[in-house]
């Protein structure tokens, strides 16, 4: 049913439809409403689940780890500092191949303290072994959770659904919430492949000495690479079952004819599409490639989609300090070295700590890369408050 609701409410409603057995999460802005709404759903008896109140994000992640290892379908959510506090457990969950679904309500990381949106938190665990899917709007954020459980449980891999804090979590927009039967038909009950059970004692995630550890990591890496197929298939199954496009590895907008291609991910792609339409009206051909699956990073498919494009600009809400754009780095890596084509791949960092990204900012970016390649630029930087002595 189509409803005009808050993004957090949409996610909570859809997570409940996925029938998790155990939920543990610690409230933190801007993820709080998701947890509050789920707590209400459980306390009102609309979802039969164990809602475990915990004292920290470390505990929340540990509870879902244990519950998942015991065979439960589990859910947790966090953001920012909470993600950092979970860090140790995040790696363990991936290493134990537990199909946990986590919502990251993307937010900046301190210091300086900042509660607003960027992608630094999920980026901080990009190498942990989780699938990371980024939502464009609240419909996709909701839909991705249904897909996430299916992907996670088919592959024994944890899935993180990333949605922009405030910009999506606190936005009221129309979201089609499916009914229980639709979700049940799409997402069968969880049949765990390996569980800890006192009746048949065994351990998972235990000790791997130098004879075994490398293989464990190799297998994880290969499993993530191979998950591209499943992510694609689950997305197309989803669109057959629910009648709308959501998820997948990436989507494109007016890419075919484009002279300049913007690559980005998350909610900013909505503004980018509006800008592309305005450029089109002015006779300028700009296209978009929006990443949904940041991990695994679909290098080959991105190369196939962009191989004829010579002017590409990546705009992202995170930075590897001392290195530069993270998504830009991955996009640049997608093209073979020593290409004959004179390809420019520019990199812009935008919207850190919730800085508004206006259409004027994005227009400036496109017009700049039209003239010259940009190695790295912070979009909308207030030069007037930066002093030379601080650099």
């Amino acid at each position, binding site marked *: 049913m189509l409803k005009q609701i*808050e993004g957090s409410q949409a996610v909570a409603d859809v997570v409940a439809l996925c029938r998790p057995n155990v939920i543990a999460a610690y409230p933190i802005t801007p993820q709080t409403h998701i947890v509050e709404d789920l707590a209400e759903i459980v306390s009102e008896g609309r979802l039969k689940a164990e809602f475990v109140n915990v004292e920290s994000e470390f505990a929340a992640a540990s509870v879902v780890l244990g519950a998942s290892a015991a065979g439960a379908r589990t859910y947790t959510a966090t953001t920012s500092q909470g993600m950092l506090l979970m860090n140790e457990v995040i790696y363990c969950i991936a290493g134990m191949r537990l199909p946990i679904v986590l919502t990251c309500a993307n937010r900046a990381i301190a210091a300086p303290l900042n509660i607003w949106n960027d992608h630094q938190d999920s980026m901080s665990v990009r190498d942990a072994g989780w699938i990371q899917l980024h939502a464009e709007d609240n419909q996709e954020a909701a839909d991705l959770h249904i897909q996430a459980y299916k992907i996670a449980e088919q592959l024994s891999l944890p899935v993180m659904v990333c949605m922009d804090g405030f910009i999506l979590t606190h936005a009221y927009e129309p979201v089609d919430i499916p009914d229980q039967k639709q979700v049940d038909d799409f997402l069968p009950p969880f049949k765990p492949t390996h569980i800890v059970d006192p009746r048949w004692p065994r351990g998972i995630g235990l000790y791997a000495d130098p004879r075994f550890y490398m293989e464990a990591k190799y297998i994880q890496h290969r499993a993530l690479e191979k998950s591209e197929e499943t992510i694609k298939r689950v997305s197309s199954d989803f669109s057959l079952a629910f009648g709308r496009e959501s998820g997948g590895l990436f989507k494109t907008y007016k890419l075919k004819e484009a002279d300049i291609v913007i690559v980005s991910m998350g*909610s900013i792609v909505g503004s980018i599409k509006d800008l592309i339409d305005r450029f089109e009206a002015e006779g300028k051909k700009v296209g978009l490639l929006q990443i949904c699956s940041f991990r695994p990073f679909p290098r080959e498919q991105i190369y196939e989609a962009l191989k004829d494009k010579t002017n590409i600009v990546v705009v992202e809400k995170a930075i590897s300090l001392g290195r530069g754009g993270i998504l830009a780095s991955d996009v640049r890596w997608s093209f073979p070295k020593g290409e004959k084509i004179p390809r420019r791949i520019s990199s812009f960092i935008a919207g850190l700590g919730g800085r508004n990204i*206006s259409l004027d900012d994005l227009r400036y970016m496109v017009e700049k890369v039209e003239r010259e390649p940009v190695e790295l630029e912070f979009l909308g930087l207030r030069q007037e408050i930066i002093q030379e002595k601080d650099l």
Partner: protein
Amino acid sequence: MIEIRIHGRGGQGNVAAAELLAVAAFIDGKFAQAFPSFGAERVGAPVQAFVRIDDKKIRLREEVRNPDYLIVQDYYLIETVPVLEGLKPNGLVLINTDKPLDELKLNTTARVETIPATEIALEIIGRPIPNAIMIGAFCSITGLVSLEAVQQAIMQKFPGNVGANNVAALERAHEIIQKRKLYA
């Protein structure tokens, strides 16, 4: 696409006002988007919330810089926050104040409307929360969203007495505006 910016102080129901307008527009069969710009998240601190209404799906995520309409829930904000910034010259600003129009001295070519929303809120709701009156007056002036849809949105969000009182406040705002139109 119509863009609305709401200014108020934490505790005045600014985000709720944006939500109610968006839900009401949705009930009217339009596409709508509402989102807050959180600042200090403290009672009394200046807060902004944004609403977009359109006949097609809304993708734009930037903050509303050049609103068609401004809703100002506390007149005194104008002294501390650049409330009128970016308002379209032919736009409209609705201000919660009991001051007469000619005392306001606003630097804008946009149309200015006022309503003593806090006074009405204290009388009908018993608390100084002006949002229902402000959106009631807004809908009555602009006709952008139907009053019936706003009533429905209020009752969905606040079932029972709270909702009923806010609907009564909304209706009072409508009466005041309609009377004003009559004598204009």
